[in-house]
């Protein structure tokens, strides 16, 4: 028996190396499964990303690339269009995020109640989400084109400013409060914020609705038994439990808002003047309009840094999620 056992336990020639190979394969299997996706990502995202960083240090002269160090960055940062654009982007993001979140939250609260036809409401509300930015922008534009737009006469009423009201597309911004900041914004900026929020509300509503539906009913019932009214239940139970989703939604909106160009392109084209020339649109015009690829690359790198800061903030806030929010 003992001899037999010895024979059985003795590895056959080549078995050891096969085992090692199998163990290597099983250990590295996730890598091999991920490899195709990584290769695709490398080709369509990492390569152009790193090429952009390289391009930001180059200048084309007669088709020949010339290393210019950080000159493109200083040209971009030194231009008045960049500083204005940063402020305009900030204004757009604030307006867009606040409007979208508040409307979405309200709609989600409404849909969270057991209503008749709530499925239908949800479907209807979701329609803007399936439209492309370009189409949505064009439709909004058609509504407000001066003299010919369906809503143009409404805004041309003296109610919106005497004597001829305003034109959402062409009325310039009021005189800025300080020389450095283009504030208050032009009516076109409000239009842009409204149109962008209209487009984003459905998705954010769905996110918040999903979060609201995870709030345990027992907790709310207990609070009610303990004498908490609707406002107190909302403030101390529902809202804190939904905050992590709101944070995710806010950063989703912010990142999408910074990088999105379609709505600006079709609705205002950066105008009137440069009143809605947000960073993404400035990037588009520098690269695709003016064929200044070096400067556009420098701007895209700067935008990447802004994006990374926002991501770091988002991760930090989502980390603090596990430790609880304090209000």
């Amino acid at each position, binding site marked *: 028996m003992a001899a037999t056992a010895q024979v059985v336990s003795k590895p056959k020639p080549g078995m050891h190396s096969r085992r090692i190979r199998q163990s290597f394969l099983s250990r590295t299997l996730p890598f091999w499964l991920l490899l195709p996706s990584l290769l695709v990502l490398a080709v369509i*995202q990492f*390569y152009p*990303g790193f090429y*952009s960083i390289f*391009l930001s240090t180059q200048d*084309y*002269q*007669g*088709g*020949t690339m010339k290393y210019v160090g950080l000159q493109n960055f200083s*040209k971009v940062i030194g*231009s*008045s*269009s960049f500083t204005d654009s940063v402020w305009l982007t900030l204004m757009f993001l604030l307006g867009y995020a606040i409007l979208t979140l508040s409307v979405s939250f309200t709609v989600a609260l409404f849909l969270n109640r057991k209503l008749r036809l709530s499925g239908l409401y949800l479907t209807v509300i979701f329609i803007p989400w399936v439209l492309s930015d370009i189409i949505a922008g064009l439709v909004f*534009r058609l509504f407000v*084109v*001066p*003299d*010919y737009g369906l809503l143009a006469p409404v805004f041309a009423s003296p109610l919106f400013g005497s004597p001829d009201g305003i*034109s959402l*597309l*062409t009325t310039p*911004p009021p005189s800025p409060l300080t020389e450095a900041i283009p504030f208050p914004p032009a009516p076109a900026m409000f239009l842009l914020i409204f149109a962008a929020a209209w487009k984003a509300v459905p998705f954010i509503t769905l996110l918040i609705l999903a979060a609201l539906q995870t709030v345990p009913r027992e907790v709310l019932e207990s609070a009610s038994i303990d004498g908490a009214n609707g406002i107190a239940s909302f403030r101390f139970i529902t809202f804190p439990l939904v905050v992590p989703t709101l944070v*995710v939604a806010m*950063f989703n909106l912010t*990142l*999408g808002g*910074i*990088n999105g160009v379609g709505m600006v*392109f*079709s609705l205002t*084209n950066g*105008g*009137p*003047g*440069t*009143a809605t020339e947000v960073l*993404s649109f400035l*990037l*588009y015009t*520098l690269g*695709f*309009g*003016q*064929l*200044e*690829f070096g400067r*556009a*690359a420098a701007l*895209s790198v700067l*935008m*990447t840094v802004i*994006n990374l800061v*926002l*991501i770091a903030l*988002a*991760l930090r806030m*989502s*980390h603090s*999620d596990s430790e609880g929010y304090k209000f």
Partner: protein
Amino acid sequence: MSSIKKLLFAGTTLSIVLLAACGGTSPTAAPVATSAPAATAAPKAAEATKPADKPAAGAKQITVWYQFDEKNTDPKYDERDSAAWLRKTLPLFNTEMAGKYTLVNQPQAFDKMGLLVVQAVQGGGEIPDVMTSASGGLSGLLKNGTLTDLTDWIKAQSWFATLDPNSVAACTGPDGKIYCVPTVSSPILVYYWVDYFPGGFPKTTDELVKVAADLKAKKVSALTYFGSTDFGGNAVGRYFYTAVASFGGKFDDGKGQMKLNTPENIAALTWMRDVAVKGYNPETVFAGKFQEEESFKDASAAAFPTGLFGYRYVNPLTSPKGTKYETKTSKDMIDAINAGEVKLASFPAGPGKTSGCGTDYGTLIIPKGAKNLEGAQAYINWLMDPKQNAEYVFGPGGGIPTSSATAKDPLFSTSFYKQGIAATTGLCTTWYGSLTNTPDAAKIIATAIYNIIKGDVKSDIATVLTKAETEYNKANQ
């Protein structure tokens, strides 16, 4: 939040960041906008990506990029007249060159052509053998190394001696080499409804302002024009420069530097601001996307400074009397001119000055890396033949021939052309003069002028102009 959620969130945001980093910067990786904003853009631009029609056996293919599509027969197509010209001439060329060359058009949106060819040349894409470009757009192409030097070849052609020297100068780079073939001059002049100007169109800006006040009382705008900052500052080459030149102004110092803060420019901009502030133009002029045309079409505006080519796009028309020109083709404007309801005039001159006129040249270029250089040259030669050239200039060119031989064609003896030539001869110059980075200059100047006449009408004109010229000169040392 669970770690999986965090991971997903971080992954999504990282993807967005990377897309931001690569989107719009790399000419080789840049996505092509799927929706062109231009009213004139070819709606079937996507077809350009389809494989080209196969050339006949033994014949070499010549690929051309036009902003119109001969396969698009939609009567509402903005470029229907140009498409009709190509439908007619493409088989003509292919028959004449049977067995040798086959011409294939790959239509592209007019405001994306430059970008697309740069992408093709730098990124190793499919390069056309020949394509159109406005002379104002050449500097961007030259900077990005997209143009073939045509100097020796063009000088050896029989038609070269017939070309207007100004048009050749517009095709000449800062290095003295010729990079394009000028085919057509596109001057800016004024289309006006005759009924609103019983005493004839004003000769001076002062007279125009007087008439404008009377017209405003009748709820008619005196002028409609492209006054937005849309299309990368395209307004600069239209009304903006024409009005400034009519006060003796210009945008450069003749040595490659931008020079805006001059007494002539300030006088012009003061007048232009006055026109805008007093409401002598409709609000649509600042709306972009060529919205300003509507006011001339329905005669709610009396005059329209635009390119001579405007007749192709501004239709249908309803005259002040109510006459309707409704074929919805370029025929409408020509019919209105023949009926004497619309006339063409030079832009009014500023005090003590002569009328100014901006112009740009329609040109043909051969991109670097074109596969069929000989074929491209053969096609250009064919197009420069006076008969073909006349039809090209009259059709898609929509301007005045650069070749004196072509100008003799009876097509240019019509009332429309006689008026157009009389209104512009000897007056026109390019807005960019010696400026070498025209895309940058166009955006900066258009924004400055917009801010002066509309954005902030209380701003100090000299200060705005100085700031703009400093910005350009600093960025383009």
